[in-house]
């Protein structure tokens, strides 16, 4: 019985100490010394312990100021001030099939307004899902995985005037579609 509890604790503990949370609107990132270090984008998943947060992602060698979801899916997670790139912890470096070097990184930070985090990913995209339906007023809406996370922003950029998206809306819909596309098959 005791052994079982220990095993159970081993599973539960990390989820207590490192809760998964999602950014519901762009939030300013602070260093552990409370300096402004960058911007965390809506949709980004962070791990939190009390008031400290960790973000994992990939950066392009020589252009480390944007943290992407992965080397294959260029979903922007955060934009980091050039002066604080040094705060990133690099785990591995690999070259993609096109010869570009990518670094897998972690970054610890605090948040100016942690209220902008939610626990349930599905709560994030209500407005964007509605906005996406607008595309259907001219043509059939595409299944999310018909375009890759890399393609969606270009597609929306192309079509945004027809859907009547404002600049802000078009960015939000793009990010929403990038995340939905991830759930489908990566092409």
């Amino acid at each position, binding site marked *: 019985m005791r052994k079982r509890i220990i095993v159970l604790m081993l599973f539960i503990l990390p989820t207590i100490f490192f809760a998964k949370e999602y950014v519901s609107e762009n939030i300013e990132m602070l260093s552990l010394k409370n300096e402004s270090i960058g911007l965390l984008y809506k949709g980004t998943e962070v791990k939190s312990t009390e008031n400290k947060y960790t973000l994992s992602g990939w950066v*392009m060698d*020589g*252009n480390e100021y944007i943290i992407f979801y992965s080397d*294959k899916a*260029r979903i922007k997670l955060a934009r980091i001030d050039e002066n604080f790139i040094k705060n990133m912890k690099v785990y591995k470096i690999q070259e993609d*099939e*096109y010869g*570009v070097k990518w670094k897998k990184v972690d970054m610890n930070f605090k948040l100016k307004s942690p209220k902008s985090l939610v626990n349930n990913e599905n709560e994030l995209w209500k407005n964007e*899902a509605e906005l*996406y*339906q*607008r595309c*259907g*007023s*001219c*043509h*059939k*809406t*595409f*299944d999310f995985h*018909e*375009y*890759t996370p*890399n*393609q*969606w*922003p*270009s*597609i929306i*950029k*192309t*079509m*945004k*005037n*027809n*859907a*009547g*998206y*404002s600049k802000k809306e078009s960015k939000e819909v793009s990010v929403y579609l990038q995340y939905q596309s991830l759930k489908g*098959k990566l*092409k």
Partner: protein
Amino acid sequence: MKNSRRNFIKATGILGLSAPLLGANMSLLEKSKKVVSATHWGTSVVTIKNGIITDSKPLDVDAKPSLMEKALKSRTYNQTRVEYPYIREGFLKNRHNSDRTKRGKEKFVRVSWEEANQIIYEELTRVQKNYGEDSIYAGSYGWFGVGKLNNPQTLLKRMLNTCGVSFVDSKGTYSTGAVNVIAPYVIGTNHHHRHTSLDLIAKHTDNIILIGNDMVNTCAIDWNAPAHKAYEKYEKIREASKKRKMNIISIDPQITDTSKYFDAKNIQIVPNTDVALFIGIANYLYKNNLHNKKFLKRYTVGFKEFSDYLIGKDDKIDKTPKWASKITGIKESEIIDLAKTMVSGKTMLMIGWALQRGDHGEQTHWIVYTLAAMLGQIGTNGGGFGSSYQYSNNGATLYNSPGLPGITAGKAKSLGTGSYNTSFSNKAIPVAKVSDMLLNPGKKIEFNGEEVEFADIKLIYWAGGNPMHQQQDRNKMVKAWEKPEVIINQDPFWTASSRMADIILPATTEIERDDIVAIGSKSAAGIVAIKKGIEPVAESKSDYDIFRDISKKFGREKEFTEGKDQLGWVKHFYETSIKQAKAKNIKLPSFEEFWEKGYVEFKEISSQGDTYNYMEDFVEDPLENPLGTPSGRIEIFSRKIASYKYDDCLGHPAWYEPAEYLGNSTKEYPFHLVSPHPKFRLHSQLNNTILRNVYEVKGREPIYIHPKDAKKKGVKDGDIVLVSSKRGKILAGAIVTDDIREQTVLICEGGWYDPKEVEGHGNICVHGDVNVLTLDKGTSRLAQGNIAHTTIVNFEKFTGKVPPVTVFSKPEIV
């Protein structure tokens, strides 16, 4: 607040009328009025007297009104209007057990709306219950009437979603089946991207290469209401070409209206061989070190694989201009001159969509993107490529405007499924595979890196489209159309698709209903009201009302309407625009003011001309502004496509011999047939109007024949000719002209299908539906687009008794 149309008329009607009539009594006012409306080919002020349209003229916002606008009255009060709901006689008697080979042959019985809706409700429910979620095809496709509310295809899906009916959808379009799939792999977006402005081209471009591009003709129509703003820019380019040296070259089997407009040099290529021409040019540039190596290195991936192919590293074929000359019928020296011209100055490659509606249509755009990359002028003023200049006035100035939303396909979520997709079924087909799907349920085909399994379709619901014109190989399609138990067709007209259905629902045209639409898809120059000027013809109803009433049968009316009537939605769309306009500091009039005036115009973003330059941001910083491709750069070689291991679409652009072309034509079928977009129609729309008198020959769709070919075949201008392919026969009216290349004939798409038994020839189309002749095959396993332009035919003077054309009158009604 619920919006009542009647209240609205009370509030605004009087102000909408001309000043001299103010103060007169209402009955007098009703007798004559002017109402603003719109179609895909124009914005109109319609004069209505005693409830009848007497005249229409274009709005001033239209920069270059099309003759098609004049057809408004003829289209509205047309012989071919479906006036009441009808049901095929055998279907009414035996329902789904009817003899389905009688479709298109049996008489129709007029029924009430109540009866039609009840039967539709019962059939949708029965089919769904008995055959499951993949049994209804609602991939309904077409251009329908313009309007942000009365979009029948979206409304059809909205009705089905709202009522919990699952359906199989379609993917892609007939127009852009191949380019829509290939472009995201190569340039990271679809072909709808905003193009380098025509202003920049007028100012900077030295060489305009029109490749199967007849924009002066095809930009007459617009996905929204047209503003025709590109025509002002064409004039600017034409003026510029007179003042400074500009090479305007049209590569096309036809001498197009665009070529004539610009007084272009014509290269009348063997149809379907453009890829070979551009490979020959690429080979010349490469071998003579004329390609831009710096650009290729920084902005593209995979040039090595492509250049190996150019010189034949593996296949040992050096694809020189001489090699290309043999395939394309263009002199080697002319190909070399063309290559030299392209590198001599700023070159804009303007490729149309026609080319990709040929076998291996993916290659045409891929090679043009590749050639533009080799020239290295992409993102520089007036250089590069554009693959949609011929569509909806692309390249015209963008106006400072808000967007205008429209009705959506609704939320499947409201049924508690948690899905926002437009269909629960995952068996969507590439749109041109409809005949194959119906004929081969359960069969699997490859498509864009995936496998699609054909559903077993028992019911088709088509609204606002004419599949019996769109789809290739009509005789095969007619067989396919015998498969489903039920076919429902909703349209204002007795098109062939209406005639081939079991249940026919009469829809209104624009002037019979309230709606709203943007002016200019690409320019966004304004918003126009589509005002109900006359009562619906006979018992026809707006698409919105038709689907609302069907939803009511399912007890889902409220969910369908969300509590709004038509004018309520129109107001809602406009007021969303007002919100967007505020955010952009644009002042929009109130809805009431807008509706009274009938339209609102926006201002150009810059009075100094449009300076938009496609891919400029990417060229400035390819890391900060990557393309949407896997590499973020232009993919001359696509690892992704290569990974599919398709032998009909390799990882780089390549020349593949088409299934049918002059290079493999036979004695039996020695001519190549092309079927471009018509000048006085929107595909098959307007074929039933007075405009037919402008272009038809002895009541038949025209066929362009070169004088030498006509002489050989003993055909004279004005003769009726029998045109045949392996797949069928049609009659057409001969126009003998050197606007078409030798050994090539041209029949525009969209002539209405009028099948009749003709002695000695069997069942033929006596009017000239070109898709009786065309081949139903996919471009490749990648895109599965249609290949209408890949067809060989023969023709002869028709000597039998000439059968009458009856498709422009009503079918037999009990």
